[in-house]
């Protein structure tokens, strides 16, 4: 039983982080947008998911939000009661929150591309890094979302099933489905003429401009998509761990995702996915080994960066372009072979 719950837990984390890693590989590895602010979109999505799944749920159920806001004990109690007794409402609000996270975070990313295009490629990363930190400062100073303490009791949409393993397995299936969707989407983009154009822009945006590519427009469209999906990952995360607080969305999260795509390979969806698989496994295993490290003068949590650094160094020495480097799209080879056959 423990193994099952471990697996379910790990794979859910994996699916959520893989969403971030795949979109980051599409941004940074393929399109040349050095996104050092991944956590901004992840966090925004999480807070949107949290607010909708609490405030909206309470409001629809007729609870007086003024008296029992979701960040107080009364609010949490009311949320627990509603989520156990009204499945259609909980699932409905959850679905809505996922869609809203996608659209709002996507638009946020799209609007951000305006300053990004103006500051020049080298500063993109730092602009986005700052955006992440600014958003965190805003969460801390907004009483509405619980300030420093954040929000608790965000209902997991399948909690009404009663059995915790069953409900988290359902949640795992849902996140895996969204991951599969995203994977297919990016894989297809990567191997399409659009993927080729994005690569050309990353290689040399001036030359791409000279070849008639509307570079800013293409970049902002892609950034809308990837930001939106990061927002969905955030909402999924908030509902899974049932809480959000500003401390969860520090810059370290961004670089964790970067480590994933560096290890796995930043130019392929499979690389990003495998990177997420490895790093989330380490992250999930470390707490389990706490008892073995009882005699250590520090908590095993501090070993995580050591392990990540070690794996990264070893992979980079052996596989400089990550475990799964880019391959030219098979489709072109197929077409060429087909033409050769036709010609005899």
């Amino acid at each position, binding site marked *: 039983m423990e193994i099952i719950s471990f697996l379910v837990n790990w794979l859910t984390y994996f699916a959520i982080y893989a969403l971030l890693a795949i979109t980051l590989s599409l941004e940074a590895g393929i399109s040349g947008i050095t996104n050092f602010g991944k956590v901004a979109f992840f966090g925004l999505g999480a807070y949107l998911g949290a607010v909708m799944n609490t405030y909206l749920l309470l409001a629809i159920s007729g609870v007086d939000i003024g008296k029992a806001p979701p960040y107080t004990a009364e609010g949490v109690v009311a949320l627990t009661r509603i989520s156990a007794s009204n499945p259609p409402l909980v699932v409905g609000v959850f679905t809505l929150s996922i869609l809203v996270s996608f659209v709002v975070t996507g638009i946020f990313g799209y609007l951000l591309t305006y300053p990004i295009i103006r500051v020049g490629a080298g500063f993109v990363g730092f602009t986005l890094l700052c955006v992440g930190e600014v958003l965190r400062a805003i969460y801390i100073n907004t009483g509405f979302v619980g300030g420093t303490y954040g929000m608790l009791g965000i209902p997991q949409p399948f909690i009404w099933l009663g059995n915790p393993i069953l409900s988290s397995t359902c949640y795992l299936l849902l996140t895996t489905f969204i991951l599969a969707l995203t994977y*297919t*989407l990016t894989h*297809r*983009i990567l191997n*399409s*003429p*659009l*993927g*080729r*154009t994005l*690569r*050309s822009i*990353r*290689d*040399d945006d*001036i*030359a*791409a*401009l*000279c*070849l*008639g*590519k*509307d*570079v800013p427009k*293409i970049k902002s*469209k*892609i950034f809308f*998509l990837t930001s939106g999906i990061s927002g969905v990952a955030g909402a999924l995360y908030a509902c899974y761990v049932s809480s959000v607080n500003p401390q969860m969305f520090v810059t370290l999260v961004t670089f964790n995702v970067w480590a994933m795509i560096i290890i796995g390979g930043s*130019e392929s969806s499979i690389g990003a996915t495998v990177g997420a698989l490895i790093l989330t496994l380490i992250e999930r295993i470390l707490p389990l080994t706490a008892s073995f490290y009882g005699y250590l003068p520090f908590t095993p949590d501090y070993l995580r960066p050591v392990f990540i650094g070690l794996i990264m160094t070893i992979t980079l020495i052996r596989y400089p372009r990550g475990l799964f480097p*880019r391959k*030219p799209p098979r*489709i*072109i080879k197929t*077409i*060429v072979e*087909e*033409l050769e056959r036709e010609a005899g």
Partner: protein
Amino acid sequence: MSGEERHILITRNVSKYFGGVKALEKVSVSIPEGWIVGLIGPNGSGKTTLFNIITGFHVPTEGEVFYRTSDKIVRIDGLNPHEVYRLGIVRTFQIPRIFPSLTVLENLLVTPIGQRGESILNAIRWRSWLEDEKNLVKKALSILTKFNKLDIAFKYPAELSVADIKLVETLRGLMTPARVYLLDEPLAGLDLPTARTLLKFIKEVRDTYKLTFFIIEHRIDLLMEIAEYVYVLHAGKLLASGKPAEVIQNPDVVKAYVGE
């Protein structure tokens, strides 16, 4: 130049000042359709600046640039580079800019504008662009075959010689309905036989596809072999223009290059 030529590209009194530096002063050139026209001049005379203005990288301080599309004459100064390209003006750079992470074939395939598979919604539905892609591959392969370069189709730029890279950069333009080529020092860094091959190739492209070439080059001796008309820039001003043989005899030109 006789009066009855159809001019495809015309600049009229184009000036460009960078602060107090007058990079170009009232430069007027006319490029006849289907000709190979050279642009020469010592370093810093404003040749690349003129190219940058024509291709939309700089906005001229004064003056106009006109271009003849298939049916009308349009003013193109102040347009964005990608808009200028869409009108059929292709440029290459002093340092070749082909995409290092794409194969030669992909470098050709990336070029055409407005591909169906370039929008996100179409990109995820392969069937919507597969037919277009097939036609593009066919076209790219036929171009490579025509110039005997089929063997490099699946190679990456890092595996090519400098001459081949320059060739690919020029071939790329043939994937689109390009009408005017602006080549910035195509012969730089090439040895004599390779340079001659490239020039022969340029002439071949011009003759096959009826294109116009406007070429910046420091190797005047080689340029003279294929150019039909030459403009000479010096310190931002047009110093002379005419048939290559005449220009090279012009005392002002000689003075600009070698001094008194």
